[in-house]
């Protein structure tokens, strides 16, 4: 890798309007496809929004008339594995905070697509740093807060942005869901009750799913009345929708693994501040970890977090992605590029850090057939930098989504 690549100017050549808006050629001082070796003087050709060709400049010809952009370093568009942008608005006023509904403890029927504001300024903000894909949705804070979606960081409507309307069902265990006496609700009042409530709901959903399957196999049997809540959890039990469980303390992580085992469901650990205490258990359970932002505040349930956790998980072979997470105050969102960078002096290599915000994220989110690396046939999503992307003083100089240059400011 090159930590001191001289910054090249982004050369945006505006050609005739006849050129297809989703066609673009990108020249890189160093190109990081992520799933293959870096290419010096690399070129990526994007046509109709998809990567058509990739290779060294002397072997890849840029078609005449094609728009060309150029940067010192080019990577796949970054993937933020867990965010709340689009739901938790940047002004932090009651009217723009749609990330948490506290009327009930368990509401998996709450869809992220019904709350996602595609024009939220924070989406544009993170896009300026090279983030092209996000998993976003309901925030930690209730046993089941709702669903998440996966979107590109472009588009004026959720319909234009979304690539997976139901990505995961977002659950939380630990102190964050415990309701203090005196509020509108009194339950769950402790950890045991929270897990019992979640188990009871999954047991109910299993019965609902069993009845649905029985009815579809036997005309004499009635399907249960449609229940949005049960449908959402049935999809979890069917293995169609992973359960994203935000947990930090070691005992809560074990509770999450216990649930995965009991109901044979796909669980993704989220946050997981104390996961370094349970490397063997997490590995044996085969669950991936979307690790808390490195710079999240070390207090409360996260007081034992460490900058070295990512390295320990990655070295053990556990799939790890980074996230921007949820912030209740300032900064209202973090930037996954920066969060990955913080782990570099703490045992994570440049290649591992880049993978954790590209291909590893894509795999955990189940979208690696489309994004996460620069390969022929994948979406033309690229991030352009004037130097080492992780270096504090480098700049993101361009972001391309499906062949369209959606950001060209130096940020």
């Amino acid at each position, binding site marked *: 890798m090159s930590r001191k690549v001289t910054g090249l100017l982004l050369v945006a050549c505006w050609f005739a309007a006849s050129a297809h808006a989703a066609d673009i050629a990108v020249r890189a001082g160093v190109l990081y496809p992520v799933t293959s070796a870096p290419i010096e003087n690399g070129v990526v050709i994007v046509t109709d929004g998809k990567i058509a060709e990739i290779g060294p400049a002397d072997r890849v010809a840029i078609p005449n008339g094609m728009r060309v952009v150029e940067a010192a370093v080019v990577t796949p568009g970054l993937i933020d594995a867990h965010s709340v942008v689009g739901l938790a608005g*940047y*002004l*932090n006023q009651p009217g723009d905070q749609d990330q948490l509904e506290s009327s009930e403890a368990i509401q998996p029927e709450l869809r992220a697509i019904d709350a996602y504001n595609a024009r939220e300024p924070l989406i544009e903000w993170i896009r300026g740093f090279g983030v092209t894909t996000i998993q976003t949705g309901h925030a930690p804070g209730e046993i089941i807060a709702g669903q998440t979606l996966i979107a590109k960081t472009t588009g004026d409507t959720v319909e234009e942005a979304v690539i997976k309307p139901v990505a995961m069902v977002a659950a939380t265990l630990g102190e964050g869901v415990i309701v203090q006496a005196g509020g509108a609700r009194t339950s769950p009042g402790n950890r045991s009750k929270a897990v019992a409530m979640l188990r009871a709901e999954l047991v109910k959903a299993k019965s609902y799913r069993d009845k649905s399957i029985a009815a579809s196999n036997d005309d004499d049997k009635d399907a249960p009345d449609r229940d949005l809540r049960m449908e959402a959890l049935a999809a979890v039990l069917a293995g169609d929708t992973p359960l994203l469980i935000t947990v930090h303390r070691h005992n809560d992580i074990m509770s999450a693994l216990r649930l995965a085992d009991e109901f044979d469901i796909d669980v993704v650990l989220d946050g997981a501040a104390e996961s370094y205490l349970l490397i063997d258990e997490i590995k044996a359970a085969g669950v991936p970890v979307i690790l808390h932002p490195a710079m999240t505040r070390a207090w409360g349930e996260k*007081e034992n*977090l460490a900058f070295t956790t990512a390295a320990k998980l990655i070295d053990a072979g556990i799939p790890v992605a980074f996230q921007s997470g949820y912030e209740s*105050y300032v900064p209202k969102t973090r930037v996954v590029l920066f969060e990955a960078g913080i782990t570099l002096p703490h045992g994570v290599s440049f290649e591992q850090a880049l993978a954790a915000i590209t291909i590893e994220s894509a795999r955990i989110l189940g979208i690696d057939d489309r994004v996460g690396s620069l390969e022929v046939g994948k979406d033309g999503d690229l991030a352009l930098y004037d130097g080492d992307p992780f270096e504090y003083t480098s700049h993101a100089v361009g972001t391309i989504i499906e062949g369209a240059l959606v950001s060209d400011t130096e940020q």
Partner: protein
Amino acid sequence: MPTSCRRAVALVPVALALALSAQAETIAFTGATLMPVSDEAIENGVLVIEDGAIVAVGPADSTRIPRGATTIDVSGSVIIPGIVDTHSHIGEVAGGDSSDPIQPEARVLDSINIRDAGFKRALAGGITSVNLMAGSGHLMSGQTLYVKLRDGNSIEEIAYRREDGEVAGGLKMANGTNSQDEPPFPGTRAKSAALVRQKYIAAQEYKAKLEAADGDPDEMPDRDLALETLVEVLDGTRTVHHHTHRHDDVLTVLRLQKEFGYRVVLHHVSEAAKVADEIAVAEVPVSLIIVDSPGGKIEAMHLEPYNAKALEDAGARVAFHTDDYITDSRLFLRMAALGVRAGMSRDVALRALPLEPSKMLDIDDRAGSLEKGKDADFIVLAGDPFSVYTQVRQTWVEGKKRFDLADPDDAAIATGGFGALTPSNSELEFHGYGEAR
């Protein structure tokens, strides 16, 4: 006399002698690139310290290492002055309570937990001097405290002292939305300014009575802790540290500063770029914060890194602050690096960490640069101060090594881990004003 006691008595002079010799120890750091900040960088420099103070800074070929000095080879490292944080909430600081928006009599001195893990985190980030501040939920939330992160068992032991022997500190003020609330707190900006002006007018009258009394006990006004504090502000012995975000709130601070003539440092200043010229003309220094995204509240919607460059271009004096817990003290160097990313020059960004803030706290006679005669407060870095790959290797305060990455206990503070930071602050909320509003 039992033998053991005799031995103990005999040991006392030896211990004293050891202590004296330890104090008088001279240490020369060699091989590093020195960035004095007050002067040009010196490659292969020599830094000599003695009795907790800097005695020489210069290039290897022209700097004499005193006979008997301990030499520490730090080749490949970069040494910069200890960082001065103008605005931090480590130590579980508290100021005024919810009874009144104006409480200059409340001292953070009376609230600090000196065993709070925040002090260790600060040292791990290369911070050696700190202005400990109460929150921004008041127009005046209390007296701040300037501390040096030397070893100490009580807050008095680490406090800077003024010439009159009193602990040194400023006055925390705020305007904008954080200090607005239900009565008796103000509900608008105009009310906020009116309340503050009325209080300073009372302080001016109190000061006039004190001067008229000229020490005559019969003529002295009744003691008033709040007004006494504000008299210090009017006298210039106590600087106002003013939380302010929006462009018009910044101008309000400048207007009040002009009316009452006090010394003020602007803090945060989300919209600094819009009023950079006015700030520069007023010759009021700024302590900036840079965070990773704008927003979080309406008045921070333009909190962008570009402010750093805008202020530099306008010619204003700029420092940075952690606002810890808003940003982590361990990553303070990163903030100045983000200023460089947004166009600030590297020299100005580097001055903004030790030298400019030390002037804002009136401690630049002792801290802020690597200069002969100043306290031996410095940090040993693995490389470029503004690189993500650079770690703080050592932090020295008054000639004592207070953080060493090679020490496993210290390394645990630098990286975190199970029980490494065990803060007793899990119940704390940001700035003491609870949920964002």
